[in-house]
């Protein structure tokens, strides 16, 4: 649904987005990760047609965003960063305005408002002025606006920013459910959201894509991935040493496989060793790797250089 080819955006001499290429298909939820100022919002603004690209192409549903902006905008539901809304309107008035702008009227409009009010838990504040609402409600009012026309493509810039943990959970579930039938792109810098909601994630740093894969693949890039952690009475580093490099972490032993491809074998080998040696194991697990570590390793050197 979304095709992005060699997208570039320059602000003066600074290239905020520098040759980004990716696709998002229907049924995919793409997590867009990166440190602040990496170019996430700029990329999203180009997808939604708010700012024109300096170079490159964006096509949504087969329409080029510079050539047919209206067709593209009709397909997209967009939650801008910081979830802006008109403070002098009521939630209902705001959603009715969004519905009018999307060409909904009469029964279809009422149905659409009812649907998003339920999806975003807004019924208790429906007739309150937006300026009187808490941040979480304001945020969800803007999210509801993005969903009002049941769009095929959703672009959400930090959809869980400023929400409490319960609300975050609800919004993540919502994104995951919506992703079954739509193409969804959302940006975040909360890494656990990638696991909670994404089918694929892209890490972007200083305008360039530095990693692109499923959450499992990204975790696999971690140095920790495939290591086996073992703890218990009698466990000794010397006996584990032949299996691979051994580290002691919080009283447990962590064995790193010599060959990452054979990592699956390692846990079994450690278990057999334990049986032979008569260790009384308390824990034995294969590490999946941590996204946070991958994220830091990929993006930190650049942050430090600045």
């Amino acid at each position, binding site marked *: 649904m979304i095709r992005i080819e060699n997208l570039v955006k320059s602000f003066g001499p600074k290239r905020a987005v520098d040759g980004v290429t990716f696709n998002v298909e229907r049924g995919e939820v793409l997590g867009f990760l990166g440190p602040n100022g990496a170019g996430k919002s700029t990329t999203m603004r180009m997808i939604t047609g708010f700012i*024109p690209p300096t170079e490159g192409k964006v096509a949504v549903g087969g329409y080029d965003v510079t050539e047919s902006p209206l067709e593209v905008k009709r397909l997209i539901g967009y939650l801008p960063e910081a979830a802006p809304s008109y403070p002098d309107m009521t939630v209902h008035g705001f959603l009715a305005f969004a519905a009018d702008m999307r060409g909904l009227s009469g029964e279809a409009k009422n149905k659409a408002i009812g649907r998003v009010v339920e999806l975003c838990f807004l019924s208790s504040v429906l007739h309150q002025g937006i300026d009187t609402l808490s941040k979480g409600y304001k945020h969800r009012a803007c999210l509801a606006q993005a969903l009002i026309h049941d769009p095929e493509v959703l672009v959400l810039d930090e959809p869980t920013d400023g929400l409490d943990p319960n609300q975050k959970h609800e919004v993540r579930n919502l994104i995951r459910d919506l992703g079954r039938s739509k193409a969804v792109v959302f940006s975040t810098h909360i890494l656990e959201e990638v696991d909670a909601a994404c089918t694929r994630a892209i890490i972007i740093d200083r305008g360039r894509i530095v990693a692109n894969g499923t959450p499992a693949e990204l975790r696999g890039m971690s140095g920790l991935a495939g290591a086996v952690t073992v703890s218990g009475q009698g466990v000794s580093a010397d006996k584990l040493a032949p299996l691979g490099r051994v580290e002691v972490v919080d009283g447990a032993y962590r064995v790193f496989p010599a060959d990452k491809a054979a990592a699956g074998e390692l846990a079994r080998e450690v278990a057999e060793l334990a049986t032979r040696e008569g260790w009384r194991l308390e824990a034995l697990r294969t590490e999946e790797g941590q996204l946070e570590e991958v994220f830091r390793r990929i993006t930190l050197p650049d942050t430090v250089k600045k």
Partner: protein
Amino acid sequence: MISAWKTVRTIARRELTSYFTSPVAYVFLVIFLLLTGFFTFTAGGFFERGEASLASFFAWHPWLYLVLVPAVGMRLWSEERRSGTLELLLTMPVTAWQAILGKFLASWAFLAIALALTFPVVLTVNVLGDPDNGVIASGYFGSLLLAGSYLALTCMTSALTRNQVVAFILGVVICLFLILCGFNPVTDLLTRWASPAVVDTVAAFSVIPHFDGFQKGVIDTRDLFYFLSVIGFALFATGVILRNHRAG
């Protein structure tokens, strides 16, 4: 085409409603009516003139609007820029000109409402004497065009900045220029170092002579063209400014 116009109407309706959901609209209306009353009857010497006309009413409009119209128009785009709703609005299926036109028409309609509420002066003059109501109608028409011109220019300054105060001041300065450039002291000043052709060109930009015709009941197509072209130019410039802002 029909759906394009519908979008303009949707934007205009939202904008107009937002005037009346805040106290600003009512404060503005009260001040506008008080000031028109003051200028017409006290400063303008409505009764002392002893004629059945609204000359003392309309004559003050270029000056009254100088402060009041930028106050109405200053928030149009700067508020959208400040609060980030500009991004929301322009990523909905609208073209920039639909948004510009919708917002402009809404605030122009608001000014028309304010102007319509001055109807008691029309009643007063009709009760006291026998005025030419055709002249009054043309005066109102001219006044509305004048307000529209100031408003379009404020729309333009509002698109320039996210700060309403800056938009207001720039709007006042540009409108003031349009008043003063035809004034004798200013044109006299210019004749000292500019050629008569330049002086005439600058003076031709002044709103006052174009507004005068309407006050006298003369609707000249040149005056009409002047006001409409000021509005057209300012709204076009608004579009260019917004496009440049988005292009970064």
